[in-house]
């Protein structure tokens, strides 16, 4: 894993699993033995408003919030939330959105798009596959494991 802090913003609308996706990512990084901080605002966002969650991991993380223009990756679950969040990305940053899933095989259910986008992200992060799978299973009820592991693997097959 890189020696610097990796910054990932997960954004979307309340009810799309933004916080769940960031929980899975933070847990995966945690399982790699890294320092991790994750931060978001909940509250009124659960009423369908914009929500963004910051995940930071590396040898040592201080602030839980990612400064604007310093995100290495931005995952956006709702296509209409791309523009309002783009300012968080650094110039060389990677945007992952439902468009990134255009080339993947099969259909992805709406409620698993968040995890499918983590699959796309997994191609650029040095987190082992089994760690991702463990984090997905640890953060979801057992009845949702199969669907989400499938979605994750579909996302991994996205061609950039």
């Amino acid at each position, binding site marked *: 894993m890189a020696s610097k802090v990796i910054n990932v913003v997960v954004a979307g609308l309340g009810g799309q699993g933004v916080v769940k996706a960031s929980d899975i990512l933070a847990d995966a990084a945690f399982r790699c033995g890294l320092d991790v901080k994750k931060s978001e*605002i909940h*509250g009124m966002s*659960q009423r*369908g*408003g914009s929500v963004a969650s910051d995940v930071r991991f590396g040898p040592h993380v201080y*602030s839980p*919030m990612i400064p*604007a223009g310093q995100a290495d990756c931005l995952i956006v679950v709702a296509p209409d*939330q791309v523009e*309002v969040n783009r300012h968080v990305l650094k110039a060389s940053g990677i945007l992952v959105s439902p468009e990134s899933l255009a080339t993947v095989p099969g259909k992805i259910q709406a409620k698993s798009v968040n995890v499918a986008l983590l699959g796309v992200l997994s191609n650029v992060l040095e987190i082992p596959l089994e760690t991702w799978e463990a984090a997905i299973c640890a953060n979801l009820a057992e009845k949702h494991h199969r669907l989400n592991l499938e979605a994750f693997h579909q996302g991994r097959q996205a061609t950039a």
Partner: protein
Amino acid sequence: MVAKLSERMLLSGDEAVALAALNAGVALGTGYPGTPSTEILEAFAVLGGKAQWAPNEKVALEVGLGAAFGGARALVTMKHVGVNVAADVLFTAAYTGVSGGLVLVSADDPGMASSQNEQDNRQYARAAGVIMLEPADSQQAYEFTGAAFAISEQFAQPVMLRMTTRVCHSKSIVTVAPLPQPAAAPDFKRDIPGRVMIPAHARPAHRHMRDKLARAATYAETCAQTIVERKDAALGIIASGVAVMHAREVAPEASILQLGLSYPLPMQAIRDFVASVERCIVIEEGDPILVTELRAEGLAVEGKPERFRFGELNVERVRQIIAREELAEPVVAPGKPPALCEGCSHRPVFEALRRLDCIVAGDIGCYTLGVLPPFTAMDTCVCMGASMGVGLGLRHVLPPEQARRVVSVIGDSTFVHSGLTGLAEMVYNPPPGGHVLLILDNGTTAMTGQQEHPGTGRDLAHQPTGKIVFEDVVRAMGIDYVVSIDPLAHDNALDQALEAALASGQLAVIVARRPCILAAPKIRQYEKAAAEKKNTCATACAAQ
């Protein structure tokens, strides 16, 4: 969550407080739901702690104080504005002191992610005279909670643990360490002069409280929560809470003094720190409290420009404070605002209020979203329960053609929290043209994440308990005009009920009842489980 010692866990600040409370032997956790504090008691209950929702924060703190008088450790949680409700208890509890540890968590919301103001509750420690601790991340939330109980017992004083949204809701790594000083067994020891605050007892109690604070200030000089990181002498930063983390990121070379015990201040340690650096800046979120107090001590410290008083701090804003940059705040594209859910039972209510051109005194909850388009059907929203008093005040003074359109709108949990005294006011001082109160009963405390309250008849863990029936309360308090309707029943029922009540010129209460669409499946499960349990009991009893 598991709680083995030296285990490494990824926890939110709220979860870390709950885990520490469990490991500290807290006998009772109580509070009222409020973002960002709600998850503390929920996590405490999941861990096996005894946790309960109180009808409001004042009652919660009273229950916690009673437990602490009994020698037990009590944890009381609320959001910042909840402390306003509990303040009456807090100020005199600072005089009575406690036997068992009493920790009041105040979860502040700088930036107002989900609140009606961004009051800085560090002011309460000063105003009431109680010791305050401020963790900066989840590890400190765990450690400081443990320390807070020990400190509370050492000084026989309630302790405030002040958190903020970013500390409550951020997850970071916690290594579970043993906590100091186990809890003692509850035992009532009579102390009439110490706990019965008649003036003859309260006068010496005030002096006693100031003596305790003076001793706490000495303790703060060398306690584990006063953390000095000596690095470069060119720049020194004094900070508390999450601002410490932003400062470390911006200025890794700077010396930092974290005031983890932020009231009473360790003034000698601060003086030494200021003297040891060439330039010293106070980085504090919210009001300029520390900087004002340090300057009053004659210390040459820099503060922040007034614009940083508003909203949360973050890495970029702290950078600008340190660099003395006078930049305008960046304009960020607005996101999508929250909205009432599709199918929400509040929707037809606000459509009707708009259609009837009502003057709506609103309240705190999901239904406050009735102020936004397409409804724009709310005219005031101030604090929990204010719909009732504000509506009545308007009714008393407005000309009749306006007065008769005034409606107070309050949710079920808010009605129990602070609507009952408003109802007493309505009965006792009725406006000449009557008044209409609309109770929106969706069977849950929806906004904060579907917590139970005394009107649902289920406790924090969703098990059956005593239930307050609103219609019965309203009648018992002297209002006979009570109508219950399902706001989604058919097109005109709600309009007709409202029109009739408004035209009656009497005191009228309409209960619009329909479960929250998000909570409804769970409510059905709880009701089914309760019915099955009841049946099993009945069968068992009949068999005897």
